[in-house]
């Protein structure tokens, strides 16, 4: 079998949460003799996984289980504390929708900015500008500054650019969570087309139906560890079990 496109090997990540947050020179100088306590928040604990050519991997887990941090590490946006991430393919992320535009620029210039960050050449961006705007249904607002856009409009634009930019691996946080039924359907069509072309995908979602439908394989994160991995349908069930289980737990504890 060919080498995996992405291998994550024993990756851990912790954030240090200070008791008092200091982010100015002034606070650091005046707080020189007031020691702070740091709380260590272990977000990811020795995670290992692999993504092969043409595979679709779903990641599920409750809020705070480390899904988004894992995605950011896979995309090279965050650095792991320990462990290694080896990436042998071009990774196109769609993370943190609705943010990440220059509000003072119009849609066309923002597409140029994000597109070139995502690895598209200027010629490619110029060629596919109409297609991107049509996909996002924003042709009429192409010359409107992003500060006048609604959050739905800017999210649709983000999807349109990323779907165009993807080459080998697409990484999606809460896929298809934006837009109306028509837009979602276009996203799903584009997604199927990418799959047919042999693209690999990593998807994070809270929606068991979606993971079941769109992924071959899935992992369930809990407390920063891989609690379970296997067939996506089984993991989707496990996730629901995890939620109801914890709900039962809280119910019991409130009764006591």
């Amino acid at each position, binding site marked *: 079998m060919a080498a995996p496109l992405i291998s994550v090997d024993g990756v851990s990540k912790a954030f240090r949460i200070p008791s008092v947050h200091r982010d100015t*020179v002034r606070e650091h100088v005046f707080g020189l003799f007031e020691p702070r306590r740091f709380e260590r928040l272990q977000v990811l604990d020795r995670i290992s996984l692999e993504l092969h050519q043409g595979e679709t991997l779903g990641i599920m887990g409750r809020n705070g289980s480390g899904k988004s941090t894992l995605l*950011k590490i896979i995309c090279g946006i965050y650095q792991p504390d320990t462990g290694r991430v080896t990436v042998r393919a071009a990774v196109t992320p769609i993370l943190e929708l609705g943010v990440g535009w220059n509000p003072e620029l119009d849609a066309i*210039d923002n597409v140029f900015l994000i597109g070139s960050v995502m690895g598209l050449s200027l010629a490619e961006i110029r060629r596919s500008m109409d297609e991107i705007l049509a996909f996002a249904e924003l042709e009429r607002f192409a010359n409107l500054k992003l500060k006048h856009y609604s959050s739905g409009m800017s999210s649709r634009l983000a999807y349109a650019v990323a779907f165009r930019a993807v080459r080998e691996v697409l990484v999606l946080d809460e896929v298809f969570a934006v837009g109306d039924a028509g837009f979602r359907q276009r996203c799903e069509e584009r997604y199927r087309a990418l799959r047919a072309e042999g693209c690999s995908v990593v998807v994070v979602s809270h929606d068991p139906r979606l993971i079941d439908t769109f992924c071959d394989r899935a992992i369930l994160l809990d407390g920063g560890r891989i609690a379970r991995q296997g067939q996506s349908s089984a993991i989707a069930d496990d996730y629901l079990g995890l939620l109801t289980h914890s709900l039962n737990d809280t119910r019991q504890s409130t009764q006591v």
Partner: protein
Amino acid sequence: MKPSHAGLIWTLVRTDFKARYHGTIEGFVWALLKPLAMFVVLMSVFSFLFPDPTYKLNLIIGLFLWDFFAEGTKTGLTALQAKGFLLTKARCPSWILVVTSISNALITLAVFVGIISAFLLATHHPPSLEAVALFLAYCGALVTVVVGFSLATSVLFLRYRDLNQVWDVVSQAGFFLAPIIFPLGIIPERYHFYFYLWPPTPIIEFSRAVLVHGTMPTRTAHAYLAVDAAVILLAGTVIFRGLAPRAAEYV
């Protein structure tokens, strides 16, 4: 550098220019008017105080070089914070965000270099080719200093969010520390060394020497400037390489 970086660099420079000047030449004229207005005000006040006939030329050279330094360091310091939306969006070569952030100031400087060269050619004492080459080298040293400063402070600013205010104060004091509105000659010679520690000072003084006075700074002076710029760039690069990998966590 990968070929795709060229497209990113061009897009960043183009959109920075557009966002700053609303994409118009008239907008850009404002950038030139700022040091020019300063020049008119200062000249009308201080040319009485300093009756030297070369005062005006010295003043305008000092003002434009200072303007690049002040603008470049100000935008460079906030570069990563301002472009943070690109850092958290994808894996983005963050040094490009910092280096391109000084492009607007660089364009203004380039236009000024053109204007001052044309002006000097039109006057009775056109500078020699060597003088112009040296002046360009001094501008290069100034750009190196600003890039080094920006690399270091852009990552530090993400951790210390009042660094821009601290720098505003330092920069304002620095305007009067550099010999822009006063000739360095009014300061006793034994203190000159301390003035030269402030990086804009040697660049302004050397530029005036070659362009206005037709004198040549010594080799030691040139070596000092080269080492000064190299050390600042090196220090900036080291700090940047140490802190930039985690920059996205602080945006």
